[in-house]
């Protein structure tokens, strides 16, 4: 079996959809709309995040951007970025469902403006209401196991812990915490959202057994976003393949890989 065959067979399900790519990509911060479009396509991502903002009369009401996204033919995941309460997030989600025609919502309720850390209390509150209203909630949260448990308790089938602060590019701050969430919730879809800065971070996330990674800045702010999108495509595939192949156990001591039997010159000059 070739490497390509391996990846083609690796489908997964999320939010009622069967997908091949485990990379979720953002649509913000690119040098140009054309660059954004190229990067998204090269990345192979089948889910792209979008947002809602105030629009003045006379403008094209976001039509140009939305037309580009629609032309890509991939799933759209609207976010509630900028919301600071459950009430704001619920209203934004309801508006997004009407505009984008999807019940998927990336639930973000920010609790601190300095580090953009999610507010766990408001996030859980909003998730509970939105799930009752028929939304498929993709909640952005920290790497706190108890918060993940609360989100699962209110019905979340997907949980998206941060790797580190949004836009920081610092990678996975607490891999042990992320691993604990993975082990505690084998049945949930887990996606690392935020903090990924380079392809190796994405690979590391996938090697932990996460189902996917969601990132934006790492690609859009690269010197060459299109090339970086390609790098992340490969990195996510590599991490997933590595996870499926089963990473070796770490050992406390050195252990030679080359056979020791038949080693030439061994002890030859010992007196």
């Amino acid at each position, binding site marked *: 079996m070739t490497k390509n065959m391996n990846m083609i067979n690796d489908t997964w399900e999320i939010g009622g959809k069967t997908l091949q790519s485990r990379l979720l990509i*953002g*649509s*913000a*911060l*690119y040098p140009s709309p054309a660059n*954004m479009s190229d990067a998204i396509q090269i990345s192979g991502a089948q889910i792209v*995040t*979008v*947002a*809602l*903002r*105030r*629009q*003045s*009369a*006379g*403008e*094209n*009401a*976001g*039509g140009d*951007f*939305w037309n580009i*996204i629609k032309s890509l033919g991939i799933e759209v995941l*609207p*976010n509630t*970025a900028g919301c600071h309460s459950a*009430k*704001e997030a619920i*209203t*934004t989600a*309801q*508006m*997004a469902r*009407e*505009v*984008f025609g999807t019940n998927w919502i990336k639930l973000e309720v920010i609790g601190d403006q300095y580090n953009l850390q999610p507010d766990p209390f408001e996030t859980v509150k909003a998730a509970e209401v939105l799930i009752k209203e028929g939304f498929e909630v993709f909640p952005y949260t920290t790497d706190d196991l108890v918060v993940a448990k609360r989100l699962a308790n209110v019905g979340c089938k997907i949980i998206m812990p941060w790797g580190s602060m*949004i*836009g920081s590019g610092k990678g996975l701050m607490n891999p042990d915490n992320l691993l604990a969430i993975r082990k505690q919730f084998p049945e949930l879809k887990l996606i690392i959202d935020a903090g990924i800065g380079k392809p190796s971070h994405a690979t590391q996330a996938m090697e932990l057994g996460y189902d996917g990674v969601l990132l*934006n*800045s790492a690609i859009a702010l690269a010197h060459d976003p299109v090339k970086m999108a390609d790098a992340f495509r490969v990195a996510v595939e590599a991490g997933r393949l590595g996870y499926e192949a089963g990473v070796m156990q770490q050992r406390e001591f050195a252990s030679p890989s080359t056979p020791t039997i038949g080693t030439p010159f061994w002890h030859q000059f010992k007196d």
Partner: protein
Amino acid sequence: MIRVSVNGEIKEIEKDLNITQLIKALEYKTKGFAVAVNTTFVSLASYEMTKIREGDTIDILAPVQGG
């Protein structure tokens, strides 16, 4: 005339307009936006029956790039 806030700007509009009439009065030409009044979502199906009152806060949101 009444005073309302539309996307953070104070505007004077006719009394007793519903959302459909407000959108027309504000000269929004294209579709593809959603409306909230006083931070509560108003669905497209409810535009006709939702009257704008003095002091209301109206948000009209459209698609943009997001992460």
